[in-house]
C-alpha cells in the first residue's frame, strides 16, 4: 500500500478500504485467469473439423 490514492481510504474509511481491497484482488484474479484461458485456447481449426458442427466453438489444445 505505497500509493496514496489507495492509502487514503484506509485512513478515512478502513472497513470500506478492506472490502474494496478484497473484492479488487478477487476481480484481478478473475480477469487474469480469463486471459490465461484465452492464452491457452487454440485458434486453429481442429483436424477434420471441416463440415462439423461449428456451434461447438473452439477447443482446447
Amino acid at each position, binding site marked *: 500500500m*505505497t*500509493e*496514496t*490514492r*489507495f*492509502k*487514503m*481510504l484506509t*485512513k*478515512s*474509511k478502513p472497513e*470500506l*478500504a478492506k472490502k*474494496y*481491497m*478484497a*473484492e*479488487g*484482488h478477487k*476481480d*484481478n*484474479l*478473475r*480477469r*487474469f485467469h*480469463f*486471459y*490465461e484461458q*484465452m*492464452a*491457452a*485456447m487454440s*485458434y*486453429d*481449426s481442429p483436424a477434420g473439423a471441416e463440415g462439423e458442427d461449428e456451434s461447438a466453438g*473452439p477447443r482446447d489444445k
Partner: protein
Amino acid sequence: MERRTVTIDGNEAAAYVAFHTNEVCAIYPITPSSPMGEWADQWSSEDRRNIWGTRPTVVEMQSEGGASGAVHGALQTGALTSTFTASQGLLLMIPNMFKIAGELTSTVFHVSARTVASHALSIFGDHSDVMATRSTGFGLLASGSIQEVMDLALVAQAATLKGRVPVVHFFDGFRTSHEVQKIEELALDDMKGMIDDEFVRAHRARALSPDHPVLRGSAQNPDVFFQARERINPYYDAFPGIVQEAMDRFASIVGRSYHLFDYIGAPDAERVVVLMGSGAETAEEAVEYLAARGEKVGLIKVRLYRPFSRQHFIESLPKTVKAVTVLDRTKEAGSTGEPLYVDVVTALSEALGEDALPFAMPKVTGGRYGLSSKEFTPAMVKACLDEIAKPSPKNHFTVGIHDDVTGTSLEVDPEFTTEADDVIRCLFYGLGSDGTVGANKNSIKIIGEETPNYAQGYFVYDSKKAGSVTVSHLRFGPRPIKSTYLISKANFIGCHQFLFLEKFDMLEYAVAGGVFLLNSPYGPDEVWDKLPRSVQASLIEKKLKFYVIDGYKVARETGMGSRVNTIMQTCFFAISGVLPKDEAIAAIKRAIKKTYGAKGDEIVRKNYQAVDGTLANLHEVNVPATVTSTIDLPPAVSPEAPEYVQKVVASIIRGKGDELPVSALPEDGTFPTATAQWEKRNIAQEIPVWDENICIQCGKCAMVCPHAAIRIKVYDPKHLENAPSTFKSTKYKGREFENMVYTIQVAPEDCTGCAACAYVCPAKDKSNASHKSLDMADQIPLRIPERENYEFFLGLPEVDRTLVKRDTVKGSQFLQPLFEYSGACAGCGETPYVKLMSQLFGDRSIVANATGCSSIYGGNLPTTPWAVNHEGRGPTWSNSLFEDNAEFGLGFRLTLDKQNEYAGELLQKLSGKVGDNLTRAILDADQSEETGIFEQRRRIDQLREALKSMDGPDARNLESVADSLVKKSVWIVGGDGWAYDIGYGGLDHVLASGRNVNVLVLDTEVYSNTGGQCSKATPMGSVAKFAASGKPLPKKDLALMAMSYGNVYVARVAFGANDNQTVKAFIEADAYDGPSLIVAYSHCIAHGYDLMVGIDHRRRRSPAAPGPFSATIRTTSRTERILSSSMPGRPRSATQTTP
C-alpha cells in the same frame, strides 16, 4: 441572523448553494469548473444534507453531453437538479439546454465561464462559452465577485423555481472561480427563506410518472411547432420581474441588495461603461476613483443578461448620460458587434423609436476586453471612458492588447492606479511542485479568518507540469477588495526559488521600502555576491528590506524533501507581522492539519517540524550601498535560435507575452515545431552523472527518461577528435556496431532531475554498492561543462537506422527522439511512450492528440517538444477537442488514403512521361520496413524531379499529393479520460472502421490534467476526485472490449514490467494494416508517490507480483502469446489478439 465569515473561492461559493438547494448533481470535470463538482461529491460522501435534510446524489458522467442528459432526465422526473461546467463542456450541453428550456424546467447550471477553443485551446476565462448558449432559452445571470457568486446562486435558484425559466449562473473562470476572498457565508435558514417549497412541490408535480402519465418530448410538424414555440413568451416576459423579486427578497433576508442592472458612479454621469462579470469589480474601483475626483462617469453592472429587460436597463442609466461604452468579454468574428453591445444598441434604439427614451440618444460604442483572462485593469477602464469622451471615438475597439494589424486597440496609461495605500499587496514566486500556492491559500484563510482584514488571493500558473512557475497574488486590507486584477506594486515579494532571479525581474513590482524574501542556498554573508546586477540595483534603489533562508536545507532536515511551502509561509508571517508570532504559528499548524490530515500523520508531523525549524534559519541581509555584481540576466533563448523563437517565444518565456503585438502571432494558430530545444529551463537541482566504466549499455535510462534529456549514441571513434575534455565515451559492447564507441549524455539544462534514470540503472559498482553507473549530482557545478558536452554530443552523427535492432530497448534508444524536453511532470509515466513512438516512427507520423496532459505538454505555448530530424522531418501534431480525438485521427487516415489513391491514379496517367519503371517501383513499393520507406522517399524525389519538366494540371496535382505515396503512420493519442469515457463512442467506431490507425492510450487511471478525477479506468478502492469514498467498481477493460471486434491489434503494455514487449507492441501496431490499440499503463503524480520510483509501481502491478489492485494482464509469456498469436487465415505480422 448569525452568519459565518469564510475565506473561499468562487467555485466553493457556487457549489455551497447548489449542493444545499438541490437533490441531484450530474457532473463532468472541466477546468475551471471541476472544483464545484468535487465539493459537491465530497460533501455528499461526508453525508452532508441539503436544506430539506436529505443528502444530494452526486454522479459523475462520461461527458458533459451525458451530464446534461442525466440532468434533463432527473429534472423531468421531478428532482431538483444542477450541474457545473464551462467552455466546450457547456457547448456539449446545448442540445439538452434547448430541451430543458423548451419544456420550461426549473434548474440552475453554474458555469465558471471559460474561453471556447478556436485557433487554440485556453483554460482561462471569458464569456465566449456563455454567449454561445444565448439561443437556448436559458436565463443568463452574471456574478462578479465571490460574495456575489454565493448570493446570486441562491437568487437564481429561487427565481427559476418560481419562473420556470432555467438559468445559467456564470462567473469568470479563474478570476472568480479560483480567486479566494473573505465573504459572508449564507446560512441554511437564508436558503430556506429564499426557496419557496410551494414551487418545489409544483416542480415535482410536473414530473413524469406512470401514476399520472403524460407525454413530453413529442415530434411536431410545420402546422403547430411554431405556435407551440411561442407559448413560452409569457414566462420570459415575467422572468426579469421574478428575478428582481428574488433579489429584493434576498435583500430583506440577508441585507445585500442587487438589481438586474446596478448603477455605480456619479449621479450626474455623462459617460457610462457597461459590462458584466469580474471586470465590473475593476470598473467599480476605477469609476469610484474617477467620480471621487470629479469626473462625470458611471458604471452599469449587468446581472441578468437574459432575458434582457430593456425597461430595467434604461431605467438604470442616469438621465444625464451622453455616451455609453459597452465592454464584451468575448469575440464574435464577422458580427455587427459583440452580444452585450448589440443588445444595448437595440434597447436604446428601440426605446428611441418608441419615444420611450428619457434622455437624448447617447453615443454608443462597443469593445472587447479580457479574452482568455487577459488582464483588465482600472487603467483600461479609464482608457475606455476617455475614448468615448472624444468627438470621434473608436468603435469595436479592443483594450488590453496592442493591435498593430487592424488598429483596434486603445492606448492605456500604465501608470494609472487606483489601489489604496492601506491595502497590503504580496507576490510569491514558487515552483508548481513546491506547495507555494497551497500554503498561500492557507495564508489567505488565516488572514481572512483570524484577523479583521479582508483578504484576497489569486494564483497564476504557467502550463508546465515540471518546473512550472506559480505567482501568488495576495491582498489584505480594511475594506472588501474589488481589485480583480494582478498586483503590479507589491509591498512584499517572496521568491521561493533562487533560480528565478535569473529568469524574471520580479523586483520591478516592489514598492519603495518593501520586503524581499529569498529562498537561497547562500547565507546572509555570501548571498549578495550571487545576485544579478538588476536585483542588487532594485534592492538599493527601492531601499528594500532583504531576508534569506535556505528553505531547502530546512526542508531536507525536516523530511519535507523539496517542499518549502510551509517554511516560506512561516517566514512571511514572521516578517510581515500580520499576526503575533505565536498566533501565526498556531494558525499555520491548524491549516497544515486541515490540508494534509487525510494524507497521514507523518506528513502532518513533517510539516510541523518544518515550521518549528524555520525561524532560526531566517536572516536579514544588510544591503550594501553599491551594486557590485557582474551577473547579468542571461538571454531567454540562445542567440542561435530562429527568428520566430527570438521574437515571440523568448518574450513568452520571459513572462512578457502580454507585450507582444497582434502581428507577432499567426493568423490561423499554426506554429513551427522543434522549439522546446531553445527553452533551457534549468529546473533540476541534481542531474545524472554517467560512469562509463561500469555501464552495461542496457539503454533503460534513456527509455524511462520522460524528457529525452538523457541520450545514447553509438558512433565511429574518429568523431571524438575535438571532444571537450570532460566528454565521456567507452567501447561499444555489442556486435552490430563493432569497433564503435558509445556515449550516454545528459542534457543538463533540460533534465528535470526526476532521477528515474539513476533509479532504474541496474549497473552497480561491485566495490561500492552505493555507486551506480548513473548517480545524481548537483546541477549547478555541472551545468557549464555538461552543456558543452551535450552540444558536442548533438553534433555527433545519428545512427544508421537501417542497422539498428529497433525491436529491443537497447536498439530503440539509439534512435533520435523527436519528442524532447517536454514540460511534463518530472518523472512522468506517459511521455516515455510518446517519446518511444517518436523514435520509432516520428519522421512519418501524424498525431491527433486528445485534450489532456499530453496535449498540454505537447502543444502549450511557448514551445513544443515535437521535434524534427536532420532532414527536417518529424511528427506533425494537432489537437481538435477532448471528445472527438479518435474521429479526428481517422480523418487524417481518410485523407492519406484518398490522396494516396489519387496520387496513384495520376501517376498511372503520367507513367508514359514519368517512365514505367519508376511508376511501377513507386506503386509496388514494399514499405513494411524502414529501408523500403527510405527507398520510396528517394523514388518520390526522382518523381518530383521528373514532374518539374512536365506541364499541365495532372503534373501539378501529382506534385501536391506525391508525398502521400510514402507510408505515413497515424497516431491517435490521449489519456484514459478520453479513451474510456468521453471519447469512447468515437474510439469504438474508429476501431470498428478497419482503417489503419494506431491508438495510444496513456492510461494513468485518472483524469490527470484536470487534477485527478475518477475515470472508468480508475481501479477499485482508489480515492480520486468524484470518488471521495473510493471507486466502488473495478476498472473497465478497454483492451478486452477492443479485442471483441476480432480485427483490432490490441496490446496492453507497461514499460518497466516488460520493456521489450512494450517496444515490440509499438512496432507491431504500426506494422498492422488495420486499427491498433495500445493501452499503456502510465504512472502519474496523481497516484501519490515519488515518480522516481514509478518503475517499481509498474513492476508491482505485473501478474508476477500482483498487488491487490493490479491490472489483469501485463506481460507474462502466456499473455504475450495472446497478444502476438496469429489467427487462422491471417499472417503472423497481423499479430491478432482475438479469436
